[in-house]
């Protein structure tokens, strides 16, 4: 094993992605530019142009084609990458199912951005949450360092013969994609490449010597079993995600778990969220703790497969769990996509907190430490008066008041 040497660079999360793609020696990249993802691909192009990455960059006319191109390349055994956001991810939607149904280890990053209409170039997780049922493993990072580390982990997870599913790594558009912060990247990619060795022989690929057909029609006699294999693969992925993260930690000294907790052990109330604003929550918790409130935080890092065991364990001692979602499922009573998941996993538990669902940061409506302080205050008031709402609270929206 080659000893790893790190260099500490000022990078934003888009550049952190590009460094990870380079260090994983990706073979084929196809992408179409969309704000706020564009600089991911610009940086990768630079690495290819200056010889640091030996990859084929396919310029395509749409995101639908971008994902189609990497699906084709993955089918012949190449290590592939693409990136997008918002409407681009929507345009890919049809092919999302093809990539997972064909069991191709595609890795894609999403600089999470609100959906049109009206047009918003700013951050929320409406795009990511819309991919819930596409059978992609979905990880959400909260720092540029974690973005770099998670993209590396993603290739190892996706290509694991027990999994063979595509992996999506999401992070906040703008709030992370364009924020510079210190990131340790490998000085020489060799140790990273040893951690994610290429092994196309471990899966079935298109090969004229050993011809196979991929994606033929499946009649009612077989379709169901093939889809059930995806169900099983997702179950195995739950363990593989943890295993790869632990192995990464052992090798490189950084690991994240499937959820992250902050000052949770003795907390009565906790806020759960995902992505970059967990950092803001952390600082809000420090402030609330110093005024004597027993508040903790939970960050969801893995969305699919959903880490139900860790969640159930983490929250059972709480009186109140506030789930701050960054997307809306229109028409649902509990309209926070993650709040819905949490309520469903807690339903059969005997020890569980009250759950309050809140929408925050929609279209990048500002979320500050003070917002979390006020949310906790409101939640505790509802709890005390035994009237925690059965529907989502739309935090900060004009024209509606809660209390």
């Amino acid at each position, binding site marked *: 094993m080659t000893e790893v040497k790190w260099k*500490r*660079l*000022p990078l*934003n999360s888009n550049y952190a992605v590009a460094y990870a793609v380079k260090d994983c020696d990706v073979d084929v990249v196809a992408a179409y530019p969309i704000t706020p993802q564009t600089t991911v691909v610009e940086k990768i192009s630079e690495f290819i142009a200056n010889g640091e990455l030996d990859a084929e960059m396919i310029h395509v006319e749409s995101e639908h084609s971008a994902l189609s191109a990497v699906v084709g390349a993955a089918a012949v055994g190449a290590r592939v990458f693409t990136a997008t956001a918002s409407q681009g991810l929507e345009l890919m939607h049809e092919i999302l199912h093809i990539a997972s149904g064909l069991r191709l280890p595609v890795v894609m990053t999403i600089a999470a951005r609100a959906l049109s209409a009206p047009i918003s*170039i*700013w951050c929320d997780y409406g795009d990511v949450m819309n991919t819930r049922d596409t059978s992609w493993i979905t990880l959400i990072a909260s720092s540029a360092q974690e973005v770099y580390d998670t993209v590396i982990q993603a290739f190892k997870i996706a290509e694991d013969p027990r999994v063979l599913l595509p992996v999506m790594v999401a992070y*906040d558009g*703008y*709030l*992370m994609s*364009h*924020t*510079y*912060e*210190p990131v340790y990247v490998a000085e020489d990619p060799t140790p990273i490449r040893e951690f994610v060795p290429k092994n196309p022989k471990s899966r079935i690929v298109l090969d004229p010597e050993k011809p196979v057909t991929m994606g033929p029609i499946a009649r009612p006699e077989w379709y169901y079993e093939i889809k059930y294999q995806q169900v099983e693969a997702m179950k195995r992925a739950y363990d593989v995600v943890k295993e790869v993260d632990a192995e990464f930690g052992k090798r490189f000294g950084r690991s994240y778990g499937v959820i992250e907790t902050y000052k949770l052990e003795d907390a009565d109330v906790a806020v759960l969220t995902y992505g*970059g*604003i*967990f*950092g*803001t929550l*952390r*600082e809000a918790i420090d402030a609330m703790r110093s005024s004597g409130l027993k508040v903790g935080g939970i960050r969801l890092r893995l969305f699919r497969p959903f880490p139900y065991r860790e969640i159930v364990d983490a929250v059972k001692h709480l009186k109140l769990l506030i789930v701050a979602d960054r997307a809306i499922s229109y028409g649902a009573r509990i309209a926070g996509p993650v709040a819905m998941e949490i309520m469903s996993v807690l339903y059969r538990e005997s020890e569980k907190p009250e759950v309050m669902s809140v929408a925050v940061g929609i279209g*990048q409506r*500002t*979320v*500050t*430490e003070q917002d979390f302080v006020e949310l906790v205050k409101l939640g505790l008031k509802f709890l005390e008066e035994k009237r925690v709402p059965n529907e989502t609270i739309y935090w900060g929206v004009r024209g509606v008041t809660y209390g």
Partner: protein
Amino acid sequence: MPRTEIRWHGRGGQGAVTAAIIVAQAAIFEGKYAQAYPEFGAERRGAPVCAYSRVSDEPIYTRAPITKPDVVVVLDPTLSKDIYMKGLKSGGLLLINTKKSVDEVKKMVGRDDIKVATVDATSIALQTLGAPIVNTAMVGALVKVLPIVKLESVEKAISENFSGRIAEANIQAVRKAYESVVW
């Protein structure tokens, strides 16, 4: 060093976002923790632009915008003071690109609980770069008044962002502003 929060105000084309990034880069090169990001949206030439830098010896977690800055840097004196003075802490620093004197600026903003520093960054930029792109001059002035990062780290960051003659000219702008800022 406690956390220092800096808010940059300029107009599209003056390089406020790059200035915020250069300060963060310089701090990270020195092994400090730092963060820089733009207030996104109006990225049109001439439109008011705002960007943030945080510098600290400790890790920085928050991603909230800076509403109570320790430092406000104004690249364009024609911006409304109501925009840039908002939330500036008592005892904080206002660094402004102007030909006016420190006393004149203090009178204009109507605050006597802050430190004011002035630099004629437009003249410096026209002289060194041949264009009124004042960002690097403002960074030079800032690190003189408030030495949160070393001059050579700023110059290293500039070499990362620009190359050749443009890097040279920007380093000149930094040095001239470093020498001529008054407070």
